[in-house]
């Protein structure tokens, strides 16, 4: 079990560093296992340094920077052991338009290896979906699934919003 964890740690760490730099457009990140203890009992520390900023504790990061760092970790774990499907409920809520764009672009590259269910209010996130379910309560208090837009059925995806909006 020790070797397995060590190997997994090495791979996740590498992916986390790469994906963090990709999402933040630079900067540095790392996962540090506390080596004093036995690996099976040690804690995992997260280091995140957005581009141009000094290294500081992750609690000083902003709401959006924390969300983006967590997304980098989730996708790094995905690279090692993809779960068959992922459910992300409004994880784009703290992100600004530019970071939503980067998140959505990364999501699209992973979507061929797993299924993603994304709940969102953001138009940019919606426009990149392959299939879109609308939930309404035409009869108040009772949920129904309405429109279904299949990417195949709608050959031209709505123009993704320009990131500068």
């Amino acid at each position: 079990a020790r070797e397995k964890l060590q190997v997994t740690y090495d791979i996740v760490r590498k992916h986390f560093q790469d994906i963090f730099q990709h999402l933040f457009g630079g900067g540095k990140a790392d996962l540090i296992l506390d080596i004093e203890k036995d690996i099976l009992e040690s804690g995992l520390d997260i280091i995140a340094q957005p581009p141009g900023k000094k290294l500081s504790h992750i609690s000083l990061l902003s709401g959006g920077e924390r969300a983006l760092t967590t997304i980098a970790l989730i996708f790094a774990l995905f690279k090692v052991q993809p779960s068959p499907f992922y459910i992300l409920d409004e994880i784009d809520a703290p992100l600004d338009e530019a970071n939503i764009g980067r998140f959505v672009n990364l999501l699209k590259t992973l979507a061929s290896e797993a299924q993603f269910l994304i709940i969102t209010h953001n138009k940019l996130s919606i426009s990149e979906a392959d299939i879109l379910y609308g939930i309404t309560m035409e009869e108040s208090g009772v949920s129904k699934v309405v429109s279904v837009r299949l990417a195949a059925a709608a050959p031209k995806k709505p123009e993704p919003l320009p990131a500068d909006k």
Partner: protein
Amino acid sequence: MYLKKLELNGFKSFADKTTLEILPGVTSIVGPNGCGKTNIVDAISWVLGEQRIRMLRGYKMEDIIFNGTSGRQPIGMAEVTLTFDNSDGGLPIEYSEVSITRRIYRSGESGYYINKKACRLKDINELLLGTGLGNRSYSLVGQGRIDQILQARPEERRKLLEEAA
């Protein structure tokens, strides 16, 4: 192995039988506040075995059964089914299509089913072991919970690595 469809019946605000086909790629779920989007996420974590009612935002188990509206009576049962395509044999079971069902009655009786045959939660957990679906801590990010991974204690975070190992 991939997810084919989700069926809800009497679960929270889904009074009538509702089916969501899940395609490969990105499925986006949208709708106004309170229409039932996060209830779908609750349904998925419940059918996969979630026992803690607080994680489903309720106080007692029957809080997940449709409770009525100004125009409808409460229902006596809630049932959710997840159907997987298993033609690649990813799940250690003979079938090319596998459905997992969970049902609960207002009386408190509840049951699990694999391809409509009654089973225990233990059987479902064994079936899902190794697929990444067993412990959903990084493949299911609930609404407002994106910060939980960064705020967790270092030992908790190590567990994420163990799941991926």
